[in-house]
């Protein structure tokens, strides 16, 4: 079965500092990968998704970017963090194709101070 690793698990960063959250997956090849953000412990907002290496689609305009340098690696970045970037960031995957279940990682808590 597939597993999703996210790190760091928690992060406290000052406003204006850069960000890099990493997600790696195991147990599946060529997965669809997703970054979601969950604010205030509630709703999940899709930020980015990727169907393959170097292929990134953005769902909402924002201060963040994503990259997929390897098949099983998905990175969420920012050059300068804003207070509003605080939240719980979740990496997720589904198997290749359009018809499969989405599974979530354990998340990374980001607090911007």
């Amino acid at each position, binding site marked *: 079965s597939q597993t999703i690793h996210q790190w760091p698990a928690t992060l406290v960063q000052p406003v204006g500092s850069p960000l890099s959250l990493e997600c790696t997956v195991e147990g599946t090849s060529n997965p669809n990968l997703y970054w979601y953000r969950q604010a205030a*412990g*509630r709703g*999940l907002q899709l930020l980015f998704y990727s169907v393959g290496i170097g292929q990134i689609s953005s769902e909402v305009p924002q201060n963040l970017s994503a990259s997929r340098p390897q098949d099983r690696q998905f990175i969420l970045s920012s050059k300068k963090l804003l207070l509003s970037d605080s939240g719980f960031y979740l990496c997720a995957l589904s198997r290749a194709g*359009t*018809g499969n*279940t989405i599974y979530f990682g354990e998340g990374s808590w980001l607090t911007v101070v």
Partner: protein
Amino acid sequence: QQQVKQSPQSLIVQKGGISIINCAYENTAFDYFPWYQQFPGKGPALLIAIRPDVSEKKEGRFTISFNKSAKQFSLHIMDSQPGDSATYFCAARGPSYGKLTFGQGTILTVHP
């Protein structure tokens, strides 16, 4: 229309009672409707899911009821237990790359 509307926002149930959470959607292109359970500080975990050609699916104490004509679906938790206390999210999957649109979540508290 990509929204999924979920209600109630919070729910308190006594142990042994039935918990019912409702969701409604607009986009008839959605083809898969999962429910996720999330404990504090953890990622959401798939609980149960249904496809629109089925009206009901049951797994243990958890049942999804699906009404295609009304574009509504609901989660029923029978014999609710304190360990079921969590946030529950309904979701709907679009035909594009398996993207999920989530409801806003329901915080369920089951009192012993």
